[in-house]
């Protein structure tokens, strides 16, 4: 396989997701996996109070978006992510980029770049 498969993992605030997803579709990214996660980093912790008892919480709600690309340039995805997900404040999250060994489509058995294509 000559093609390079790249996995992009974006961990960020659970805001503006639908808009971000629409922008990704414009640059050719249509498939992704999204999960709700908790994370902690530079952002300050917050305080919950129940019947006067304070509870300091350092884990914040975040979403994790996993994307695998081959034809679409990785830098395009990163640019869109930074443009739409940056608020300028600590806690915006991180983008992790990995090189993948292979991809297998469960239904068709196709591998590599072919497995990512949407043909039926």
């Amino acid at each position: 396989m000559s093609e390079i498969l790249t996995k992009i993992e974006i961990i960020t605030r659970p805001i503006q997701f639908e808009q971000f997803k629409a922008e990704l579709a414009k640059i050719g990214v249509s498939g992704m996996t999204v999960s709700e996660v908790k994370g902690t980093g530079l952002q300050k912790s917050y305080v919950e109070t129940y019947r006067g008892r304070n509870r300091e919480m350092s884990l914040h709600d975040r979403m994790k978006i996993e994307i695998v690309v081959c034809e679409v340039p990785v830098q395009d995805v990163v640019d869109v992510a930074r443009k739409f997900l940056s608020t300028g404040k600590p806690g915006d999250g991180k983008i992790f980029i990995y090189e993948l060994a292979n991809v297998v489509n469960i239904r068709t058995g196709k591998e590599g770049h072919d497995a990512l294509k949407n043909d039926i």
Partner: protein
Amino acid sequence: MQMADSVFMFLATMMVWLMTPGIALFYGGMVKSKNVLNTAMHSYMPLAVISILWVLIGYSLSFSPGNSLLGGLDWVGLKDVGFAPGPYSETIPHSLFMLFQMTFAVLTVSIIAGGIAERMKFSAFLIFTILWSLFVYAPVAHWVWGGGWLAELGTLDFAGGNVVHISSGVAGLVLAIMLGKRKESGDSAPHNLPLTFLGGSLIWFGWYGFNVGSALTINEVAMNVFVNTAVAAAAGIIGWLIVEYMANKKATLLGAVSGAISGLVAITPACGFVTPASSIIIGVIGGAVCFWGVFFLKNKLGYDDALDAFGLHGIGGTWGGIATGLFATTSVNESGANGLFYGDFNLLWKQLVAIIATYIFVAAVTYIVAKAINLFVPLRVSEEDESMGLDLTLHGEKAYHESI
């Protein structure tokens, strides 16, 4: 017999009935999601167990003629308790009065569940509810309402400050201390406050039946009770939120619901004997003093009254009993008495005797009953069950499922 009173008392009985599922939801929302079903079951099961116990023997021990400490056995199995009016009201069927009181007996036990949440064994709690209802609720109800020694002494408890709230609060506290702290008590947080809000609202709704129904008829006293109950609950919210805001700079929904219940608890013994203006004061102080109980006293003394059965019902009930001795006036109810602010010290003294006697008796008998059960069934669940959650380990079901 009178149809209007009977219909009114039927409605009041149904309203008080609703408070018990209300307590189950109120408590259920405040625990972790792995314990919500167990907590709700603890408050729901008295509807099954105590209802039957009440018909078999509980009602007779509480209300039938006996001595000054306990009722007799004349009405066991509802013998002579039928459609004809009984000694407590000439205008409603005796069986209706019995059912109205049944909802009180059930509710009282279900309140206790707040103290023991997230760590008591289901079987041990079930056995406890039966024994406690016989050995604690029945005598205390008899003392106050069945012609026992507190009634003879002349203490005032219109709708059950001693009988329902102090007794359940103190029992919850004693059990909480005997069980010890929850493993995760420092990290506990309500998993579903909207559920608590729904439950708390049902409790408030039912409370109108609880207090107004305690008049057993619709007369001037009953309507004064209705007004007093409404304004005391409102004032309780304000009292709680003011102190909470001063302490934490936040006004919370859980605080508002808790404040309403604190105000309702506080007005319960007083509602038939005080003016609406006094009720507002009783409610505001009730909300404030209950917040102090759960915020300061609980931390200071270090007991794990998980959902504040004592914090709301014990402390609120105690304040309500004292407040009755301060604010009661015969101008609203001739069969009442004048409190300290109306020039008579005697009532306050009697109220204090009633409160202290209830504390001592309830604490002692609760302790003995729980110790006795512990000989046969351990009161507390195993550490492993506690960390896995009681819904799954004790009941084999989960409240919330992930899709996988």
